[in-house]
């Protein structure tokens, strides 16, 4: 016997107050759907446009910061459960301020769009590329083996440095990016904040080491640098037997 759930009450579309939503979409430059206003397909298109507005970056079409943070939290949970290796890359366009100052903000936007496109095309469809700040991007790479992490980051860097970006008629520009990356601790529930901090620390290192490069957090077996060892033993005098005060 067929059981049917009672039909949900229909919403009278005429009573919906969509003015604010439409205004929001208009301000964001989103194209309003062509369908007959208040038809089902028109409403669906408005909803889709609102979803895009809340989860995507308007300039590049990439995932925005808010959405990125949700994806990152979900990945932390997944890695804790599955033990898979997952890589977070933070990247930043080198000397971007100079681009804006020299060629204007329009050119700056062109550069951001071009870099975003190149990055998104270089990684796998399952990876999440987000614009998290002005000229800052982040990539979440689930199920990324630790031994290929640096190669992936390098490939992204090369692809961007190969770009010829047209910022005006016949005016081409080349930019470079710096990348920092860290793998999520496997099996262990960490926090999205810690993971971001670790990747950011490597991004600072890439900047400090001269930009246009990728730095990944060292693997655990080479975690202690010579500098740290030096400081660790600086004043220990472990070879004496004399009691201490």
């Amino acid at each position, binding site marked *: 016997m067929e059981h049917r759930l009672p039909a949900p009450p229909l919403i009278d579309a005429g009573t919906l107050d969509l003015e604010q939503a439409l205004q929001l979409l208009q301000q964001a430059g989103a194209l309003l759907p062509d369908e007959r206003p208040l038809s089902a397909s028109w409403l669906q298109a408005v909803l889709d446009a609102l979803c895009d507005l809340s989860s995507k970056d308007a300039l590049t079409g990439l995932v925005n910061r808010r959405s990125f943070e949700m994806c990152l939290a*979900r990945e932390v*949970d997944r890695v*804790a*459960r*599955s*033990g898979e290796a997952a890589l977070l890359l933070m990247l930043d366009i080198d000397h971007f301020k100079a681009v804006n100052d020299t060629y204007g903000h329009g050119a700056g936007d062109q550069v951001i769009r071009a870099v975003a496109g190149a990055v998104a095309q270089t990684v796998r469809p399952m990876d999440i590329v987000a614009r998290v700040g002005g000229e800052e991007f982040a990539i979440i790479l689930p199920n990324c083996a630790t031994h290929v992490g640096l190669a992936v980051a390098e490939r992204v860097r090369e692809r961007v440095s190969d770009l010829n970006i047209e910022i005006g008629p016949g005016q081409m520009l080349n930019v470079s990016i710096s990348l920092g990356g860290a793998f999520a*601790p*496997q*099996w*262990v*529930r*960490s*926090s999205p904040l*810690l993971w971001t*901090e*670790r990747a950011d620390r490597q991004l600072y290192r890439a900047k400090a080491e001269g930009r246009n490069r990728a730095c990944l957090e060292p693997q*655990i*077996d080479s*975690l*202690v*640098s010579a*500098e*740290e*060892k030096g*400081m*660790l*033993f*600086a*004043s*220990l005098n*472990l070879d*004496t*037997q*004399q*009691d*201490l*005060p």
Partner: protein
Amino acid sequence: MSMTPDPAASRPARAGARTLAVTSGKGGVGKTFVTANLAAALAARGEKVLVLDADLGLANLDVVLNLHPKLTLHDVFTEKATLEQAILPAPGGFSVLLAGSGMVEYSRLTPEVRDKLLHIIDLVKPRFDWVLLDTGAGISDVVLFAVSLATDVLVVATPEPTSLTDAYATIKVLATQQDRRHVGLVVNQANRTGEGKLICGQLQQVLQRFVGPTPGQPFRLELFGEIKSDQSVRQAVLKRQLMLEHYPGCDAAQSIKALASKLLG
């Protein structure tokens, strides 16, 4: 998102055992020795203590305690024994759950092993005052996972440079990846009085410099004990006896008792 609730998901604090992981980075620094004797010292204070051999791949708590278990964690995992059958009395008045040699297949974590261990910890917690996790050496994913199961961590180190380096690396990983703000340090085989304090201070300085404090959440390494080199320890280890039972008056035994008192607050 998965629909089944994850047992490791953050849950409210509950009554039951305090969980303490004992780890070291480097092997052979006395991790199992400290764990076993600390368990006996806590038991002597009236606490109900379970030591869980979390060194799944290369367990040796049975060797230290001279136990010949018929049933182990492995049998619980494969459902050949119940948890009750596998929890054994150890000399010193505490209980042990030994990994056993059949655990080699579990030396790599799988989602299955992870869930089984979480489940077992959940089962034993309400029955004891303390669950001590004796982890393996190194900073492998298995060790880091075992440590993550515990509320508190003790890192055992000796004044050997290699041991200190590995202890430092372990603490660094715990601070940066597991968001631990507090780790206890036990300096074993100290050559002189005060060496523990010196080493702890030095480690703390390097950590502050290189791990970097998260604003508002300073990292604290606290010296929990200093166990001086002691001939009685050597004797007990070689004879596979519990030091606290056979040499209760020696300096090392006093240090272990002090460590238990500190834990009991």
